[in-house]
Every structure is written in structure tokens, then in C-alpha cells.
């Protein structure tokens, strides 16, 4: 018997992002659609950044998780439009990011508070960070640097 679409979503909920394992692919909001086409499970994925090197790892992780869940035929579809936005990050995902030490995307102006001490006196060190989706900031209260998940 084919697992229901809701069961598939539950499987995908358990697949961590390869670069930020604190959140799952569904937290990230990049799984756009899951649907059965006869025997084949079609999973529609949208890239975060067009050059993000994690994309191929993400695709492999999806296929492996679904095969482990007993689904033999998986077809991954890439959907560019509408382009991914950090608005699609779930509220749960944003909380997990902050607990992990990454300031979640809330405003294009920058992070709301330091994920370490909650301080609001912040400065940007670099427009880019360790992955395409992040920028480097520093808290002037606790003096710790931290990553900010950029708002796009």
C-alpha cells in the first residue's frame, strides 16, 4: 500500500538540512509539493540560492530517506518560481535556528537580537557568512560573533 502524502511529509520532517542540521528540510520551506503520480512519488523542491552547494546533498538526502521509508520510485522535480523566500521558514524552524546560535531572518535590516545573550546592540561584520544563506554579525553586549540567516 502507498503511504499517504501526510506520512511522506512526516518522513521529510525528519530529514535535516545538510549544512544547518538543527532544522529540517520542511522547516526550511524548500519542499514545495509531494504527490503520487501512479507508482512514482514526485517531490518538488525549490533551491535556496541558485549556487548553493548543499542542493545536490539535499536531493540525495530526500531520496535516501524516502527509500528507507520503503518508497521505491522517487522523482525529484526542481521548481524555480516563485523563488524561495525566508518567509517560508516555519516558526518552529526559526526557534530552532535561534537555539542553535543562528539569528533567524526577521527583517532585511538585520537580526532582532543576539542569539547568545539576547542583546540588541548589534553590528554587521560581513554581508556574507559561512554559507550563502548567512551573514556575519557581532553582539556589542556579549562581544560574541554570530551568524544571521539573511532575509530574502
Amino acid at each position: 500500500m502507498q503511504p499517504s502524502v501526510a506520512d511522506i511529509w512526516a518522513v521529510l520532517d525528519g530529514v535535516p538540512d545538510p549544512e544547518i542540521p538543527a532544522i529540517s528540510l520542511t522547516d526550511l520551506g524548500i519542499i514545495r509539493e509531494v504527490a503520487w503520480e501512479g507508482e512514482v512519488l514526485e517531490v518538488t523542491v525549490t533551491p535556496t540560492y541558485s549556487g548553493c552547494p548543499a542542493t545536490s546533498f539535499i536531493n540525495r538526502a530526500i531520496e535516501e530517506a524516502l527509500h528507507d521509508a520503503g518508497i521505491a520510485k522517487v522523482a525529484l522535480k526542481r521548481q524555480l518560481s516563485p523563488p524561495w523566500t525566508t518567509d517560508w521558514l516555519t516558526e518552529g524552524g526559526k526557534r530552532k535556528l535561534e537555539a542553535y546560535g543562528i539569528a533567524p531572518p526577521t527583517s532585511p535590516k538585520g537580526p532582532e537580537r543576539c542569539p547568545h545573550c539576547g542583546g540588541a546592540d548589534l553590528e554587521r561584520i560581513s554581508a556574507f557568512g559561512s554559507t550563502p544563506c548567512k551573514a556575519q554579525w557581532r553582539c556589542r553586549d556579549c562581544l560574541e560573533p554570530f551568524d544571521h540567516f539573511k532575509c530574502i
Partner: protein
Amino acid sequence: MDPLFEFCLRMGDNTLVLGHRVSQWCGHAPVVEEDIALANTALDLIGQTQLWLGLAGEVEGKGRDADALAFRRDAWDFRSVLLVEQPNGDFGNTLLRQYLFDEWQALMLAALKRSTDTRVAAIAAKAAKEVAYHVERSRGTVVGLGDGTAESHAKMQAALDRLYPFVGELFATDATDEAVAEAGIAPLPSDLRAAYDAALAATMAEATLTIPDSRWTHAGGRDGSRHSEHLGHLLTEMQWLQRAYPDATW
């Protein structure tokens, strides 16, 4: 040649050549934050290349994918503008070249979001978000270095004097441009010039840099008629592996 194929090559070859140029900074930037920023910018540009050249291959319909187009064509088949082929020079020169390109790319992508070809519009909408970030950074750096120390100012002015004569080619308009504009696929490059000039004037005023008077421009890259000698050297390095070991994978 199909004008849409040619158009996609122009978009993709610009981002490919500039992406490769910028990637050459990896491990060499003045400070680690800038190194990371340059590498991330290069990554975005290469990602956009995969989309544009992927579409080019699809439009052409001869089984060539983005990799085949990137690594199996020689200089005369490239359609990149001469600006992006220019050597990196110093850090200021690299960021000024980036700014001159970013401002054009942002305007072009904004117009392409309204393309009648939904594939073109989708790529443009995706890339525009990344490019908005590139412009913010390259503009800020040009202003910071231009309106900086006497030495940084002098280097930025020299870079502007050197690179400005490559700007005009971005707005050149030929039969290919007219065909894709006629079909509603892309704007006429010449129609973007006024907005570009306004943005450039504002940035350079803030950066205390003087835009050269002459509008004379080098050209020959975007139609492939006369590339600079730099492109051949760049391709020799970039394509080496696929030339030596065709279809190598790992």
C-alpha cells in the same frame, strides 16, 4: 542561430566568466570576511550560470547541458562582455568591476522578471534576489574605498578610468537583442542605459570618484567577434580538466 539561445548564452557566459574570475580570489582576499564574501558571490554567479546555460541547452535542443556549454566551447563561441573578462587587478579593481556589472545585472533582471518566456522570468526572479545583495555590497565597498584614504581613492579612480571604457558594451544592441525584445523575452539593452547612468552617477558622487567624460567603448565580446586575450587564458585554466579527461566525474 536562435535568438533566445544566443540571449541565454550572453546571460550565462557573463555570470560564468565573472564567477570564475571572482573565484580566483578564494584564499587571497585582504581579510577573511572579504574572502568569504567573494567566494559566496562567485558561487551565486556560477549557480546562475547553471540556470542560464541549462536553458540555453534546452532551447538549442542538441543534447548539450550547462556543463557541455561551459567546458566544451572555445573562446570564439563565448558571448561574455569584455568587462567580465578583465583581470582582477587589486581588490579595489575587482570590486569596482563587480559594481559596474552588478548595477547592470540588477536592471536587466528586473526587466526580465516580466519576460513573456516563463523560464526566463523564473530564472530572473531567482537571480534578482541574489544580485540585490551583490549590488548592496559592491556599492558599499566602492563608496568606502573611493571616499577612503588618499591611496584607496587613487586606486579606485585608476580602476574606474581603466574599466569605464568597457561599460558601453553592456548596452550595445544588435539584431539578436531586437529579436528577443520583439518577442517580449528581454528588454533592449540600450533602454537600460538611462537608469544605469543615474545609479552610477549617484554612487560615484558618494564615492568622490569622477566618471570619465568619454562614452567610447571597447566591444566584441557579447557577439563573439573580438574577445580580449584574457578570455583564452581564463578558459585554459577553467576548462583544463574537462579537456584533458572528457566526461570525468567524481
